[in-house]
């Protein structure tokens, strides 16, 4: 049902979207690793968890992980390079201590999981079952910042298929697979993830990167290199979403696989750009650290942009880029 704006005789555009059965009020999700476990941001004045469609929690592994040496973030032109190394308290701690605190919010909670082996991914998925308050799983098969595991799964279609199939066997929760841009052909990995049982795909993860301090001749990151995020990678992400969307709309007939766009988003216009390329929803990460604008502002801007485009439902714009011939 569409609400009318007070005092204005136009219909408020419908911003609701559904990703693999996860119903969200709007297409804006918070990207994993930029929001901790959701409890920290409850202390930020003027921020409300319920403004966003969903929150993707920090990448969680089976066991507690200490992470990489500091510094873990380096600022570069139009973005940041990070190498956190999956620091997290382990799945049991997260399920016991953070998830119960997040149940009070209306927003959807998606747990991002990472592992060093197929069995580890499988075991984490198993432990999430029957936990009230987790609405979906995002599988990180593409973390550039760990020596073994993570990255390798996303580099090879066969390994992607096998790990996703194993996770699928353990869970009925909506399964989102997060893809890496650091591959020759992202479509091959997308295909393998879909065949393995993914309900949705999110892309892109960070782009491998390095920055060097010329005075000390040392890398700016403690782990020497890491992953680039922020506006610098937005056009890369737009292209990957476009390629993946084209593949899915042409070759995946029996199942509709929604896409979640990630990469340098900081305005309503960025979001609409991703949606036109083929995304059903988006994740915002790095820009929440800059705080140029608020999520509330972005949401009201999207509504205005939709009115300008004479579009009542945001869903109608998915993949509607008009290509030059």
């Amino acid at each position, binding site marked *: 049902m569409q609400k009318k704006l007070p005092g204005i005789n136009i219909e408020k555009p419908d911003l609701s979207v559904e990703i693999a059965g996860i119903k969200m009020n709007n297409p804006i999700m918070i990207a994993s690793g930029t929001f901790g476990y959701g409890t920290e941001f409850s202390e930020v004045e003027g921020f409300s968890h319920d403004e966003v469609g969903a929150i993707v929690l920090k990448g969680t592994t089976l066991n507690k992980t200490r992470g990489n040496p500091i510094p873990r973030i380096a600022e570069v032109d139009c973005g940041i390079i990070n190498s956190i190394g999956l620091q997290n308290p382990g799945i049991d701690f997260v399920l016991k201590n953070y998830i119960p605190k997040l149940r009070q919010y209306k927003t959807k909670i998606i747990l991002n999981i990472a592992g060093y082996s197929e069995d580890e991914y499988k075991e984490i998925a198993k432990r999430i079952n029957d936990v009230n308050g987790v609405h979906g799983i995002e599988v990180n098969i593409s973390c550039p910042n760990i020596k073994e595991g993570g990255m390798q799964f996303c580099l090879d279609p066969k390994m992607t298929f096998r790990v996703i199939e194993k996770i699928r066997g353990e869970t009925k929760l909506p399964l989102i697979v997060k893809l890496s841009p650091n591959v020759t052909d992202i479509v091959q990995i997308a295909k393998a993830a879909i065949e393995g049982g993914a309900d949705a795909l999110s892309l892109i993860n960070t782009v491998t990167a390095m920055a060097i301090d010329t005075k000390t*001749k040392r890398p700016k990151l403690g782990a020497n290199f890491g992953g680039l995020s922020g506006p610098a990678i937005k056009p890369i992400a737009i292209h990957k979403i476009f390629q993946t969307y084209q593949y899915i709309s042409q070759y995946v007939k029996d199942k509709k696989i929604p896409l979640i766009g990630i990469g340098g988003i900081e305005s309503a216009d960025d979001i609409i750009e991703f949606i036109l390329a083929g995304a059903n929803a988006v994740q915002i990460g790095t820009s929440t650290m800059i705080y140029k604008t608020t999520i509330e502002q972005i949401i009201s801007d999207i509504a205005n942009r939709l009115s300008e485009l004479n579009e009542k439902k945001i869903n109608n714009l998915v993949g509607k880029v008009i290509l030059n011939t």
Partner: protein
Amino acid sequence: MLAGATAVAVGTANFVNPYSTIDIINGIESFMEKNNIIDVKELIGGLRC
């Protein structure tokens, strides 16, 4: 060069500033003077991880 390059090519910056290559060459010279580097080749692969 610290990362391993022997030379570099300047592209997009020429669109923004036609003098960019000249500015960059002057910039390397002053970097070398400041850091007591006599031969630019000293920089190649000079990164310390």
